[in-house]
């Protein structure tokens, strides 16, 4: 199965967006407007729900014509592309999303064709819908594929503590380091798991155009 690399699953969904001439604004614009306001921090739905390392949503308006001599063609539907790099397998990941963030999922996918009328709370129907939209990944590359999201968040937090410990214990007697490292080890074990996306990094330029 190409969508899997180690313990990480590469989920790719192409969800057709409702084309309703009577909808003002159109459903694709409603999705875009909603996503533009969606949090990226610890209150992001993908931080609240388990398992997402990195995920993106893209509104695909049409395919691009690359020029002659290739043929020009266009999509009849617009699609919502969901690309997620997540722990475990597809069904357990999607079930986790449906259980934790059903309203957030409905707010996005209710603009898509075939989404269950009763939304993500109807988990069997939600899973069936998502499977119909899934495109199997042809080749998935994940250099770190044996750690869960929580394990990585814990490792990143612990590394900062350990680096500080090493810097602050230079030149100290071995017995003191030995005593204190035991205390640090116990403390790290007792800390709660870090929140995903809790550390936000600001960038002056955020569009990521080709000149950046």
């Amino acid at each position, binding site marked *: 199965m190409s969508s899997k690399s180690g313990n990480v699953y590469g989920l790719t969904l192409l969800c057709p967006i409702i084309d309703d001439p009577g909808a003002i604004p159109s459903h694709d614009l409603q999705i875009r407007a909603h996503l533009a306001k969606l949090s990226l921090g610890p209150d992001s739905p993908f931080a609240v729900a388990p398992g997402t390392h990195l995920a993106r*949503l893209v509104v695909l308006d049409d395919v*691009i014509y690359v020029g002659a001599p290739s043929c020009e063609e266009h999509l009849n539907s617009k699609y919502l592309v969901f690309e997620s790099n997540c722990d475990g397998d597809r069904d357990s990941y999607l079930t986790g999303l449906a259980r934790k963030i059903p309203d957030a999922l409905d707010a996005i996918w209710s603009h898509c064709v075939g989404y269950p009328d009763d939304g993500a709370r109807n988990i069997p129907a939600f899973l069936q819908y998502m499977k119909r939209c899934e495109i199997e990944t042809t080749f*998935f590359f994940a250099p770190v594929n044996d750690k869960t999201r929580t394990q990585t968040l814990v490792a990143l937090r*612990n590394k900062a503590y350990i680096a500080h410990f*090493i810097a602050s214990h230079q030149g100290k007697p071995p017995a003191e*380091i030995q005593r204190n490292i035991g205390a640090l080890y116990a403390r790290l074990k007792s800390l709660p798991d870090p929140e995903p996306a809790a550390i*936000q990094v600001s960038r002056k330029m955020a569009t990521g155009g080709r000149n950046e």
Partner: protein
Amino acid sequence: MSNINGKVYAMNVITPMKPSKTWILRLIFWVLGVWKPAQADLIQLKFIQFARWVIVPAGSFPYLGGRQRKDAMRYDYLFFFSNFNGTWNQYIDAFSAVLSDGLNKIWRWSEKFPGSVPVTPFKNYITSVQYDTDYYFSAYPQATVNDVEAAHLVNIAFESLCTTASSQTPEQFAQSYLQFVIASQSHLGATGEAPAVF
């Protein structure tokens, strides 16, 4: 809308391919998947957190009935999604300089692909077939793939040190601690805000 979240950039590239050529690309990806040494350059670049290529055959855009009109395309489409650290220019430059053969093997089946060298027409091509990201989430936006690998290495070494520390004499511990510091010292860099590079 943003293609960037912290230290990660989301690239979306979609290119058309003649269906008669798609099987060759599938074969190349199959070889890449089963013969791990073929991924060595990709791994050594050390700035890709996750990447994937998805071939959508001409008649396989999801059709869910109802009011949707079915998409019957003439071309197959190659979707490329990358999550990389650094800037767009650094990424494309590195790909062109280090992986030009590999890139050509993957994209030469796409219509109008100019080749990955020289880099200027390659960048123009990628620009023309790239889509912006509407929402981009990262659970650890402050960390690069190097930071993640380093954190796991340090944690494994720390765990090993601490499980034996309590049963060691101070002299034995001093030796273990020295080895731990030597092994970890190059992985202790702080994470945080990425520098703005132009």
